[in-house]
């Protein structure tokens, strides 16, 4: 899969990105349809003001900012009300009780007459020209959404630095390769612009999913809408830098992925949805990989205590040539990804040397979260609401 992502990304670079997404040459756009910059906030008293004030500096002539206070228990509502009094472009929606991000986004989309919705997270800093970069894609009537390029702010610890590499080499590279194929598994919910008419066509966001971005991506593409990737539309985000926070976040992502696979498994019986099948298979292979790895570890541990049949025995856990090739491929993948992403980031390459730990640390986390999450996703009730609390936001200087 890694080589597929590398080749697909390089193709994408040469075909779309090299000239079309040069950050030093923003696109010249002649029409400025109204864009609603939507930020759902749940207990964001520490970040809401910074996020909103950054949005209000957006370099686009026709926008409004809609902040959704999703039943916060802290001072988020108070902060948003104060800011709305000071800034005419800011509107605030208070949800009486916590309803989840999907409901918050839907409310904001219904309560605006803007033609396009650009949604970010409550602690994210959107690049001032993101809307300019994304809006041009919607000249094609087939495009329903454009996903941006999330970049990490929290780079103090080893976990943080590895995530910098991960966001380029996994999230960025996979999106490019999937765009080369023509379908994405998911937009990045932290930075994505939607055509409101497309959202209406598919019934807006689903309330029951833990990852509303994965679900809306599938809803749109199954209705033959296109989703594109714009690497120059960056959004600076905070990610957890503790194991506990990382585990919570990745578990939620894995459950969300499992929910999507379960909810959309019906596409196997519908020839018109065949273009989504490779994306389904790609995710399915990652689930199979996770369980296979878990089985190998268990078999290795058991062989010390129990006499296992020959075909089950795993005597060596330290990989040989296969491990060398996999690790080398991972480093090559990261290098290619950083080459492509370096023009959108700052001092990206200094994080490359920490990626040597990525196969060990993050593949283990990915494996464990998938093994734990998949049964949870299968067992989750169809109408169980998708509510969660954000994990830690990394180490920052106060």
């Amino acid at each position, binding site marked *: 899969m890694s*080589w597929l992502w590398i080749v697909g990304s390089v193709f994408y670079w040469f075909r779309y990105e090299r000239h079309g997404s040069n950050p030093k040459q923003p696109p010249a756009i002649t029409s400025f349809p109204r864009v609603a910059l939507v930020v759902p906030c749940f207990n964001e008293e520490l970040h809401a003001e910074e996020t909103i004030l950054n949005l209000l500096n957006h370099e686009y002539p026709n926008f409004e900012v809609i902040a959704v206070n999703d039943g916060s228990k802290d001072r988020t509502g108070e902060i948003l009300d104060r800011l709305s009094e000071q800034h005419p472009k800011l509107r605030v929606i208070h949800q*009486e009780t916590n309803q989840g991000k999907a409901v918050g986004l839907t409310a904001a989309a219904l309560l605006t007459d803007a033609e396009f919705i650009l949604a970010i997270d409550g602690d994210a800093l959107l690049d001032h020209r993101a809307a300019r970069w994304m809006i041009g894609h919607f000249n094609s009537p087939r495009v329903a959404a454009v996903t941006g390029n999330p970049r990490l702010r929290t780079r103090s610890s080893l976990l943080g630095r590895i995530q910098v590499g991960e966001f380029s080499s996994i999230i960025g590279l996979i999106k490019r390769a999937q765009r080369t194929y023509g379908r994405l598994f998911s937009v990045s919910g932290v930075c994505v612009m939607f055509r409101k*008419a497309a959202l209406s066509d598919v019934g807006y966001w689903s309330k029951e999913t833990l990852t509303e971005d994965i679900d809306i991506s599938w809803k749109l593409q199954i209705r033959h*809408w296109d989703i594109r990737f714009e690497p120059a539309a960056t959004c600076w985000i905070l990610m957890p830098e503790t194991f506990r926070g990382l585990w919570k976040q990745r578990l939620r992502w894995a459950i969300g992925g499992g929910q999507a696979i379960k909810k959309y498994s019906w596409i196997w019986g519908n020839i018109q949805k065949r273009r989504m099948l490779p994306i389904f298979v790609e995710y399915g292979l990652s689930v199979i990989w996770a369980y296979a790895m878990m089985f190998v570890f268990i078999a290795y541990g058991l062989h010390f205590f129990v006499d296992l049949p020959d075909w089950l025995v795993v005597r060596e856990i330290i990989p040989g040539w296969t491990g060398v090739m996999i690790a080398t491929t991972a480093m090559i993948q990261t290098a290619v990804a950083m080459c492509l992403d370096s023009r959108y980031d700052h001092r990206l390459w200094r994080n490359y040397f920490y990626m040597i730990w990525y196969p060990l640390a993050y593949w283990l986390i990915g494996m464990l979260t998938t093994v734990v999450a998949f049964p949870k996703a299968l067992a989750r009730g169809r109408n169980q609401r998708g509510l969660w609390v954000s994990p830690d936001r990394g180490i920052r200087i106060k």
Partner: protein
Amino acid sequence: MYKKNKLPDHIRATCADDHPLIYESSSNTPKDSKVVMYSLNVVGWSVWIYLWKPFATIFAWYIGYELAHHHLIYLEGFSGFKEFVTTSVPFGVGLCFALVLWAIINLFRFRGKDRRNALNKTTAEMDAKWTKITSEELENARKSKRVVCHYDSNGNLIRTSAD
């Protein structure tokens, strides 16, 4: 600001004011002097390492040769690599080729075609259908700077009130 040195007991001297006995903070040095200092250091060490290179490389070659011979020839490690290349690489190359071919075919097949009719902007009447409020209430809510939304137990919007 200078940091006072922590000196061993056998060095006893009194300094004026709060100054340390030894000044060794690099922040005191002008930038151009620091550049010259570090550059000279690099040059000096480079020359020194270059002079030792023949001995270092003989040693490194010996270790490298012994290691490679042991793993690749004696332990037949090369056969594992050969097996990997002959089984996995053709499969991977085939997948990559298929992806690029698919992308090129689609590029030419759909060049200049939108493949979808443009949809009109949604109206308040259309949007209200996703809620349990009327289009008038939705229009009014859109004009308000602060709105409170009320939901039923299934997450459906049932009422709005201007704050």
